[in-house]
């Protein structure tokens, strides 16, 4: 096991794993478990949405008309593209192109900022229209996930620039990718449910 970890940056293989492969599998499984609990969290929110939409269809239709479809569609494209750049950064790390991987990660962070920027424009519109139910109604789940994702991505960018990810080890990057893609997955459903009623 020590020769397997040889040549890798220090501290990658934890002492309690017999091999890097087992550690990679355990890490991925752990990340999928975490993302699955997130799916279940969103399951509750989506179910609440379904119940209220069933009961107050007219209100949902009317409220949806106050949303800017152009900005919503733009945000969908931004998030999809950011998912693509994360996937590409893992691909580049995997094929030993650390510089390209870092560029893709940086692009992803920019797209995440773009997403938040577009959201900010939308919310300032709602604020002007007095369409928000309260002063602090900004803590929407997706945005929390985006901010958390950006922190993860920035950290991964730092590690990539340090040259920690290569064809021999890229699981850390892969886990960050898994985190980010789920934001995209949720938004894929939110887009037609919120904007296109």
């Amino acid at each position, binding site marked *: 096991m020590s020769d397997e970890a040889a040549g890798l940056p220090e501290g990658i293989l934890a002492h309690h794993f017999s091999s890097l492969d087992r550690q990679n599998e355990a890490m991925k499984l752990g990340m999928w478990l975490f993302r699955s609990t997130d799916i279940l969290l969103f399951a509750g929110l989506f179910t609440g949405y*379904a119940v209220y939409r069933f*009961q107050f269809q007219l209100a949902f239709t*009317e409220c949806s008309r106050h949303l800017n479809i152009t900005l919503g569609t733009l945000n969908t494209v931004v998030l999809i593209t950011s998912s693509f750049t994360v996937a590409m950064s893992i691909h580049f790390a995997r094929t030993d192109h650390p510089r390209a991987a870092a560029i893709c990660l940086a692009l992803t962070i920019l797209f995440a900022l773009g997403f938040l920027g577009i959201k900010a424009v939308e919310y300032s519109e709602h604020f002007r229209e007095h369409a928000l139910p309260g002063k602090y109604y900004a803590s929407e789940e997706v945005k929390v996930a985006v901010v958390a994702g950006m922190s993860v991505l920035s950290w991964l960018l730092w590690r990539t620039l340090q040259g920690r990810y290569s064809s021999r080890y890229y699981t850390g990057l892969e886990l960050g990718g898994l985190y980010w*893609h789920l934001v995209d*997955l949720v938004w894929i459903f939110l887009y037609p449910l919120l904007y296109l009623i």
Partner: protein
Amino acid sequence: MAESALPSDKLHSPDDRHEEHGHSAVPYLVVWIALLFFTALTYVTGTMHLGGWALPLALSIACIKSAMVALIFMHLKESSGATRLVFVTALVFLALLMFFTVADVATRFKPATPAGAPFGTERSQPEGLLEHEMPAEE
């Protein structure tokens, strides 16, 4: 001895690792373009006012899109059985929660609308009501 090894040990033997260089970016590009296409399709069909078919269609497209993200972007296609099982279990419980809740709500007696409520509990909008009530829209 061989039986005690995890499947992953066989999947990623040290010899395999060199083949990472042959890893192709083409599937990611294809999925990205497909996702953009399906987003456009969601937008076009979503603004066509298809009535009762709009929601099932939009959700079907969303399911196709998320399947592509999960399988290709999230590498579920090449993942081990355990990670797939975790994801599928989450989806099963999501389906259980959604199905029984929506089935319950959908088959209840229609509640009465309180007098003076801005929005009723009616399931579909009466003809021409929105145009009457919301002249500010145009």
